[in-house]
């Protein structure tokens, strides 16, 4: 299954709900486009909800990093929510878990924005 993506807003924070795969040529570009669109619209508090992402590869990890740096460079903040064990394992192996602010609870993620 390729990636699907929807966005919603909670207390001024944009939650991007992703599902499926984030891989080369599948979910990566979709995510990049969405983050660019949100930043262009001035939405700089972003949570990527990865609870339904069952597969990610090195390109997908790269897209998460690109999203993180794009938001940070725009003066915003990006957090990750609800990592599946597969995604968490890869973030741990690559030490990216030390880069991202990872939350397991949506309300806590929203509240964590300054």
């Amino acid at each position: 299954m390729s990636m699907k993506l929807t966005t919603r807003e909670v207390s001024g924070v944009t939650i991007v709900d992703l599902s499926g795969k984030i891989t080369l040529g599948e979910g990566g570009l979709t995510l990049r486009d969405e983050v660019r669109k949100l930043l262009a619209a001035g939405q700089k508090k972003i949570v990527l909800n990865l609870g339904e992402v069952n597969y990610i590869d090195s390109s997908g990890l790269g897209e998460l990093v690109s999203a993180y740096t794009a938001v940070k460079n725009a003066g915003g903040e990006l957090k990750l929510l609800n990592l599946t064990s597969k995604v968490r394992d890869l973030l741990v192996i690559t030490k990216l878990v030390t880069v991202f602010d990872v939350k397991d609870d949506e309300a806590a993620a929203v509240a964590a924005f300054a």
Partner: protein
Amino acid sequence: MTDSTKDRGTMTLESELSSVDPVEAKAEQLAREAGFDDDTSSQVAMVVREAVINAILHGNKRHPAKQVQVRFELSDEALRIRIADQGEGLDPDSVPDPLAPENILRSSGRGIFLMRAIMDEVHFHQLNPGTEIELIKYRAKKELQA
């Protein structure tokens, strides 16, 4: 190669990303057959996918006249997958460490690292022309004989 090693097929692929999915599916099927759990089988399939994508994009540079060959072997000891391209060769030591602080925010360069993290052994063989990556995952650690 031990006597128990069985050739489980060879796939010859065009240098197109559409070639990747069938290889990944076969790798996952063989990993399950080897007795690895669901998560491990999925990870093995993922790094095979990484290796094939590297071969297509960085090895063959998507050249339509160049192919990627994938050989699967299963023995009592291990699942072994060899991915060979027809590119100009790869020096794996030239790939920057993705864990280094100056590289951690790079958007690429984690493929070979993931292969090494997930498989038990990763070997690079220089061909003429091309590079073969050999990925090995042991089925179970053997008890040391007294």
